[in-house]
Structure formats: C-alpha cells, structure tokens
C-alpha cells in the first residue's frame, strides 16, 4: 500500500502545486500516514530538489499543449494572461486524467461554460467555446457505425468575421450583432462541414 501512496505523492508533487507548497511548508505533516520513513525521506528530498521544477515544467507543457493545439480560437480570444488564469483554475479543479488532447480540451470547454453560467463575462466567449467544443465533439473518436450527432451552435454576432479574425490570432473588433445558427456535421471524408442559417427564434 505504501508503494501506491508513494507514487501518488510523487505524481501530486509534479501535478499539483498547492500540494507541493503544503509539503514544502509543513514537511512530514502534509504527507499520508502510510508512507514508510524512507519514502518520507525521499519525498522531502524531492521537494527540495530543483529537478522537481523541471518535471513540473514538463507536466505543464504536456497539459498546455493540448489546449493550445485544440482550442486556437478560445486561446486567441482570451489572450495569454486570461487564458493562463483560466487554465490554472481549471487545473486546480480537474487533475490530468488522460493522454489525449481531445478529451482534456472538451473538459476545459465545459469548465469555461460553467464559468460563463456562473457569471463570467467575456464578449464572444460563449459563442466561441460552444463552436470549438462542437468541432471537437464531431471529431471525437467513434466506432465505424456510430456517426456523430450534428452539432448546432447559436451565435449572437456575425460568425464569419468573428471566426476569421480569431483564426488570424487577432482579438475580434467591431463584430456586428447577427443572430444565426451554425450547424456542423461530418462529410463522407470525415471532415467537419458547417452551414449557416438565420436564427428566427
């Protein structure tokens, strides 16, 4: 059992900065009781080792790459500082569980949508997160017979210039209000296709 606890402790030191800080501040008092004296000594040695920061950097790169790669529009809209704050909050709430880019990126979209539901106000964010999440949902791995359900995203602003500007990495400016619906589905080649229509609702 202590072998499991020891590995969990090492993994948390790398992945959870709050836990690392607690161990640095409190020493043995922050550790699980079932670690052996040698395992405790090793953990305290790691916490004092500069190599822990290098491992932590690798862990962060591993997680950041997923979101940077899969959510370019959300990334461009939020900008580096806000994105870093939201990712930091997301990581506190959600430990890394998957190797895969898509799964964690969808989880980050869900986190942002919860934040938006809780009062976060960032112009265009609700539309962009819904759009990128829908794109990922269409690309979610499935067995051959299981086609993805079409995705529908409502926009309150004209999606064409909005998406164009974000695709260029620019923060969007002067986007006209335009209620419309984007409907996404996969074509025969497995590529995502979007169709726009006026939102009469």
């Amino acid at each position: 059992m202590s072998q499991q606890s020891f590995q969990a402790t090492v993994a948390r030191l790398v992945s959870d900065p709050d836990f690392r800080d607690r161990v640095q501040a409190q020493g043995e008092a922050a550790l699980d009781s079932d670690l052996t004296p040698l395992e405790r000594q090793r953990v305290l040695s790691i916490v004092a080792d500069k190599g822990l920061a290098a491992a932590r950097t690798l862990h962060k790169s591993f997680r950041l790459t997923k979101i940077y790669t899969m959510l370019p529009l959300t990334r461009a809209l939020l900008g580096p500082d806000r994105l870093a704050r939201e990712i930091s909050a997301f990581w506190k709430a959600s430990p890394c569980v998957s190797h895969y880019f898509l799964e964690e990126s969808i989880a980050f979209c869900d986190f942002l949508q919860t934040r938006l539901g809780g009062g976060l106000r960032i112009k265009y964010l609700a539309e962009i997160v819904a759009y990128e999440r829908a794109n990922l949902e269409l690309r979610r791995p499935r067995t051959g017979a299981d086609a993805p359900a079409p995705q529908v995203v409502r926009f309150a602003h004209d999606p064409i210039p909005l998406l164009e500007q974000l695709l260029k990495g620019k923060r969007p400016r002067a986007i006209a209000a335009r209620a419309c619906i984007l409907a996404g589905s996969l074509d025969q080649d497995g590529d995502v296709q979007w169709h726009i229509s006026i939102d009469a609702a």
Partner: protein
Amino acid sequence: MKDLPPVPKLGIGLLYQEQLLPFIESQRACFDFLEVIPDLLWADLGDHQSPRYIENSQGIDLLQQLRAELPIVLHSIGLSIGSAYRFDRQHLAQIARWHEWLKFPWHSDHLAFILAAHGAVEINAGVTLPLPYDQETLDLLAPRVAAIRARLPVPFLLENNVYFFQYAQQDFDEAIFLNRLCDISGCRLLLDLHNLYTNSRNHHSDAYSFLDKLNLDHVLEIHVAGGMEVGGFYQDAHSDTSPPAVWELLDRVLPDCRNLGGVTFELLGSWYGDVGEDRLAAQLCRMRELWLRHQPTAQTEAQW
C-alpha cells in the same frame, strides 16, 4: 518460460510522426524500419469503457501500407508498467491484438510510472516518473513482465528513463538494477542514449561508467535523439539532431551490443520544420555509417 530467438538485425529506424510522412515517403533509403507509438493511433477511452480502444482507421490503413514495404516495431507510452495500483492487462491485450496483424519483431515501453491513484482519482502525470531502483520495484515488475512475455511471442523491451530528481538510498544503482531486471524477468533493454546523456548532464554522472556496468547483451534496440536546455535543465525534448556526446556514446556501445536489432532516431513531428529534411537525412545517414561499421551483419528486409 523459454528463451526467445534473436531479433532480426533491422538496421536504422525512424520514429513515425505524422508530420514526417513526406520525409518517410521521399527518403525511404535513409532508414530500414519505422517505430510507431501505437497509443497515438488509437483513442483509449479508459478501462471502464466498452469498447475501450477506438482505432484511427486512416492511421491503420497507413500502417498496413507501410508494413508491406518495411518492418514496423511498436514503442508504447500507455502501459505505465511501474504503476503500483494496477497492472493494465487491457493495454497488454490491445498490443497483442495489434501483433496479430502487424507482426512486429519486438515491442517496448518505458521503465517508469505515469499513472497513479490518489483515492478514487487517477492522476496522469504526463511524464515518465522514475521508479526507485529497489528490490521492491523488481518484485513489482517481474510478474508483470512475465505476463507480457506469456501474452506475446516476441521480446518485450523496457527503456531506461529520464529523471530530473533521484531517490535517496536506493538498493541498486541504475545499471545494476537494469541488469537484475532483465535477469529475473526476461525483459530486454531499449537503451536510450539520449536519456542517458540527459541524466548524466543534469546530474553530473558518468555515462561511460553506467555503460561499463550495464550488460549490453540485454540491449535489443537503441534510441538516439536531441534536446534542449530549459530552465537550467537539459530536456529530452526530441527537438533536434543528436549532440556530439550522444554520437560518442553510440560509437562506444554499438560494437558491444551483439544482440542489437536496430538504432532508432526520435524526432517530434512539431520540430521537423526546424530540423528540416537535409539535417534529418544526415542524422540517419550518420547512424547508418556507424551501424555498418559496428554491426556488419545487418539483414535485409527479406530475411526478417
């Protein structure tokens, strides 16, 4: 468990990355086999899902085409063989299913743990965390390697790990631990010389002393790569061609690895644009020169 026959001497390998496909198609003479990370060609939905693995059909089609032209070996990242809280038999079964159609001559994974469990939560560290070089770790690994060897009729290799911190008071040093692991479990080694270089550079240890102690008869494959300095540590980033020290290590070990099947270069696809076709070709060409100098009995594809 019976001893396995020697692996074929395949020669020079290249780690498959999607971004390298133009190079793979146009520079076929530069390498003799491809190494594939199978976990990137399937999606693992987790051990409570059914089906757990959803395979990338385009990737499978490509592999089948490539398999008709040259040998392919598997280098997995998903087993986390050192995780104390579980041994992933479903992952092993998935590798075995792939062997049925891909017929790889050996397969490998990392001597590390990536997954750990804290209460009911599974943590994916995203990096290969080091295992203590203790008898307790050998006791954990030996039956797992035995299960792998019983499931697949080809050698299973474990790769020496990169570590950025070391554990105090370990029972063995790394080379002796690897020798014992191979002796008691029957696994073989994927000797990653860039990992060895990274560790020796970061921890000021002697890579040659490590090699002097290591039983090189266990080495069936060698990895070489390049990396970069980040935040005061040299990282095994697979971001460049190999530095001079790695070439010197390769020159040192190649004559003594009599059971070697191949030497593989690892480059992350996202760095291909920086490295470029010419430098990648030159890296592989230099590897071949050393291979031919020190491993003169290389087989052709038809022989394996």
